[in-house]
């Protein structure tokens, strides 16, 4: 279990750096997605410490995945629009 916690931590930190440091907006969106996956991984791994299987964090993660999809879609479309109208794909 510790192994997956470490993995989630490493993924989260890597993605955190990526979100702040990359210039291309699509890359930031990818980093944001990796970051949310790391958080889900953390949640599910911690939930396994409880005796029996705890379905509540699983349901939370399912909800989180849907929310991530919608935010990703909106962000991707915004990047495409920004490119079309201002010919750039990074923030000023």
């Amino acid at each position: 279990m510790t192994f997956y916690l470490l993995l989630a931590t490493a993924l989260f930190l890597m993605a955190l750096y990526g979100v702040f440091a990359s210039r291309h907006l699509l890359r930031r969106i990818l980093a944001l997605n990796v970051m949310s996956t790391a958080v889900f991984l953390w949640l599910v791994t911690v939930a396994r410490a409880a005796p029996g299987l705890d379905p509540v964090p699983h349901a939370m993660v399912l909800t989180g995945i849907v929310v991530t999809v919608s935010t990703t879609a909106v962000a991707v479309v915004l990047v495409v629009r920004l490119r079309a109208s201002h010919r750039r794909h990074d923030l000023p």
Partner: protein
Amino acid sequence: MDALVPLFDALLGALLLWLAWQSIFAADLFRAVVSFMIFGLLMALAWVRLEAPDIALAEAAIGAGVTGALLLSALGRLPRERYAEAAQHILSHSYWLLFWAPVVLLAWFLWSLEAAPPSPPGLGEMVAIHQPAAGVDNPVTAVLLAFRALDTLLEIGVLLLGSLAIWSLGPSPWSTGPAMPSPALPAMARALFPAFVLVSVYLLWRGSHAPGGAFPAGAVMGAGGVLMLLAGARPWLTGGEQGPWRWLLTLGLGTMLVVASVTQFAGYVFFQYPSDWSGRLITLLELAAGLSIALLLFALYLGGQPPVRWRDRGWQ
């Protein structure tokens, strides 16, 4: 065999780390997107290892379906430069100092977890006690649609808000030109479409007693819609103001609200179901939510308001 399973985990973890690194820092943007898609693929395996088949199913359905399609389509609309500048990082290396704070915090957290392994009571027992009242056998479905139905309501609300935001940005940016790469494509789509319907109905049905449910079913159906669109079918989801699609997009949210309010007027708490009706109500909600999740994901993929009339896209 006992030594093999940790080896499997270690290999999986190393692959995940490498792919995440590639998808964030690779010089070529297409390589980054492909790495991200493979990352999603392997995350499904990780969920399986963590005994979360529900999440594995959702991750598979969404990562291989709408998210991948959306990222690839967006990449097709961005200019294909060598992305040399895209790999540039805007922070100087001294900013790495900023990241030591969370590192230290997380290390401390991990250490405290190791030092005193928590034995959290968890909510598993409570769910198990109340589950018979919910009328479904799958605990995750019971949590999603009975105990924490408010979360699901808001989740569908977020999906609806997302597609509203996208539609308000203008018409769909993907080319709907005549490019049909092969005559085999429409044939494949026709052959696969029944399978899409079959699998999503099966997942919906399974949701009441095993991993499955409205969201994976809706995601599979939405991906089926994307495939049909790419194969040249003219969807009946149009930008015109007439038609049933606006009602269908809000079907999930509407049904949940109606059920919640009716039970409230009948003297129960918001989203508390009468116990004889619980199973049937949950099935109804799943059906409505699955249908509108499929449509909403398809609408999200379109990337803008669909045209009032879809053009025919024959093979060139």
